[in-house]
């Protein structure tokens, strides 16, 4: 077979005799490995960023749902638990035990149990504010390398009806 000079396979003996530093056969593989590292870092970075962004948007939505539920809970027997339920329903893929929730009604804490929350409503006028402050942790791991341990938060307020 007539190979062009450049593509002609070297005789096995010639390959054996050449030193490893002069060998160009694996160059593409090495380059590919380097390129793959950068590409994968970028790709997984995008994926991770997308996940964290999704979490943040869900948390924002959950805070708003919680504030709204709390704002219509005057006179309810279970203002705290129904607010927490509304919040969890609004953020189905967040780990609900990881969400730090601070609920207030007109500045009074509505945290922990329904009794505290009912007391927070008191007998006040309608111009009090129901507020939900939520925090959620995010670990920015890209390719198993921990970039940063962070958390993000969001606040939503609603007028008590």
């Amino acid at each position, binding site marked *: 077979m007539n190979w062009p000079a450049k593509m002609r396979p070297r005789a096995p003996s010639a390959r054996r005799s050449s030193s490893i530093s002069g060998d160009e056969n694996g160059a593409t593989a090495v380059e590919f490995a380097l*390129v793959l590292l950068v590409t994968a870092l970028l790709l997984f970075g995008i994926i991770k960023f997308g996940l964290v962004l999704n979490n943040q948007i869900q948390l*924002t939505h959950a805070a708003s749902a919680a504030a709204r539920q709390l704002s219509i809970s005057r006179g309810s027997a279970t203002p705290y638990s129904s607010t927490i339920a509304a919040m969890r329903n609004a953020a189905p893929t967040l780990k609900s035990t990881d969400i730090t929730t601070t609920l207030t009604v007109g500045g009074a804490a509505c945290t922990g149990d329904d009794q505290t929350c009912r007391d927070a409503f008191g007998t006040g006028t309608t111009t009090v504010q129901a507020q939900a402050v939520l925090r959620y942790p995010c670990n920015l791991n890209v390719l198993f390398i921990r970039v940063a341990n962070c958390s993000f938060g969001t606040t939503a307020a609603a007028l008590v*009806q």
Partner: protein
Amino acid sequence: MRRLNIAGLAAGFRRADGGVMAPIFALSLVILVGMAGAAMDVGRVMWVKRQLQSSADAAVLAGTLSVASNSSAATTAANDYSGLSGKKNTVLGATSVTMVGGAPQLKCFSSVKVPACTPGSGKYNGIVVTQEARVPMYFLRVVGVTEMTPRATATASARGGSGRSLDVMVVLDATASMNNLDPNCSIAGASKMECAKAGVRALLQGLNANLDRVGFMVFPG
């Protein structure tokens, strides 16, 4: 000192086929980084959009509480709970948030029966908030997009929908004992009959003339 052999280097560069992947990758990296950047920019817009919608919802719900009774209080409440800078639901990640039209728009919806509203009467039963945010772009700037302006609208009415009518039957006792004094009546010195009539009047005033049906009967009649 060795002289740099430019011609020799250039010839070597032309012949070399070892580093073909590097320039290709360098080119594609520009696109990849651009795409990652675009994803971040658009992602931020989506986050702002979510906040805009949440704050618009809170604003109209705060406003509807008083829209039928006190429209200026409704405007104030809607502004207070909006996503504007310095308000209770301030939107993060945007350079500025404005309310389209400058303020919450008070509406008179004829489809809403309770509380009813006649257009042009200066009374309102609904409120609309449209918010717009300006989100600066950091990566998409390269292709000429310097900012995006997501919008969110929320509408709410005072009680909503058409009211459900009530069927009320009032039966009034008209026996002689109704002439006796009623010590429990809120009207001092009123007889039981006067007190009952006052009660019926209060009941009728609480009903809606356009919706509810009331029957009246006296016994022994």
